[in-house]
């Protein structure tokens, strides 16, 4: 067991093509190294408790507890029930967006033009919202369950008045984020473009998921010791599994 990524400890690996969507059950103690394979990736992510799908990632609670508007090493993702669902134990990127949401079909067509299955087959343009909804539907979830998501690899910064600028080229090919799952999590992903990305050509980057067994957060874990709030969040998670 290792909180640090070791190629020898890899359990499985899977690539999500740019624009595509994915979901799966990740058991607590498993970590994923998520790698931007081509640079400029965006990976919209949502987290649900598979045993009680009304418990899900909560953006405001995650931001408030840690006094941050973005995620990087040491930060955790809270559920609406005050528990740590997953935590960022490694990161070569430094900033992952939490407040910009996903593209919908109209935004994608307006920005990149129309590219349907009829004309483009699997190179068709896909939106983040449709990708997440397709995956959610596989578990009996739907629009009511689509809440504010994390956008791994993307960065949008506010000025003093709150006006946002998208930081292009923020993530480079080979950049990664290591996410440890502290609860059993239904993980729902879309690799469609970020809603603030000004690119005019639809070519979202592929990402790779590499799973390894990282075990539970140790007493000196970087996320547990980040702030006293996180220490309490881990206690809430650990009590849930007693």
């Amino acid at each position, binding site marked *: 067991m290792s909180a640090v990524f070791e190629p020898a400890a890899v359990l499985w690996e899977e690539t999500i093509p740019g624009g595509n969507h994915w979901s799966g059950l990740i058991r607590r103690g498993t970590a994923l190294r998520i790698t931007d394979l081509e640079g400029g990736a965006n990976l919209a992510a949502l987290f649900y408790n598979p045993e009680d799908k009304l418990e899900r990632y909560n953006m*405001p609670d995650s931001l408030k507890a840690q006094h941050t508007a973005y995620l990087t090493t040491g930060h955790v993702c809270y559920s609406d029930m005050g528990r740590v669902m997953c935590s960022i134990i490694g990161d070569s990127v430094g900033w992952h967006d939490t407040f910009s949401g996903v593209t919908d079909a109209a935004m994608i067509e307006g920005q990149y033009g129309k590219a349907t299955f009829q004309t483009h087959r699997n190179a068709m343009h896909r939106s983040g919202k449709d990708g997440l909804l397709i995956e959610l539907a596989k578990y009996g979830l739907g629009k009511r369950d689509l809440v504010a998501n994390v956008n791994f690899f993307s960065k949008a910064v506010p000025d003093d008045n709150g006006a946002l600028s998208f930081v292009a080229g923020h993530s480079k090919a080979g950049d990664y984020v290591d996410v440890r799952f502290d609860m059993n999590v239904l993980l729902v992903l879309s690799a469609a473009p970020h809603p603030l990305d000004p690119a005019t050509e639809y070519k979202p980057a592929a990402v790779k998921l590499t799973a390894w067994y990282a075990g539970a957060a140790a007493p000196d874990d970087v996320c547990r010791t980040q702030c006293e709030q996180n220490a309490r*969040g881990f206690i809430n998670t650990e009590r849930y599994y007693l």
Partner: protein
Amino acid sequence: MSQMLTESPLDPRNAVLDQVCDAGDPWMAEVKKGQIFRILDLEGNQAVDTLFYSAADPEERYSAVDTIARQRQLYLTTGSVLYSNEGRPMLTITADTCGRHDTLGGACAAESNTVRYALEKRPMHSCRDSFMHALNHCGCATHRNMSKRDITANINFFMNVPVTADGHLKFDDGISGAGKYVEMRAEMDVVVLISNCPQLNNPCNAYNPTPVRLLVWDPVQAAA
């Protein structure tokens, strides 16, 4: 930080609805397309946790991330459009004497209070408990089959939660004061769900939750 403050010409004597929501209480009502809805901070530095739903289909609801991304803007003030999860305008802010309202801070909850303050704070009054209470009691909600699934990231009117360029999220002292208000025109028939935040642990209201006043004008009154 610059603020464009915009006053309203509307007279409270012409309002078709004029109610007070006490400190810590929930409040729910329907506002029709074209009506003007005002939230008035009676004593200052309140945070009014607010959610909006389409009256025709509550699966369509205020979306913080659509509102932020579609306008490339984190804070709300006059001219801001509140977008639904379908990307449609639900309301437009038409007057604002406070100048900035928060989209990121969300509502306090018993469970998140255990994380933010102390494990022992779970029994304290919270906004999400107020939302749950309203959804189970108010006629606006009970026939619409609404539940915890519908509680999403809310607006905090009058709350000042600045984000710095380096991504630090701060809970600053309020910039609101007694008598300040925000006013918005409904672009569709909406259901409003409010928890008048009783957050006893937050220094921004001097640990003293206070009441707010809610007013609605018909379009004809608004035009007069």
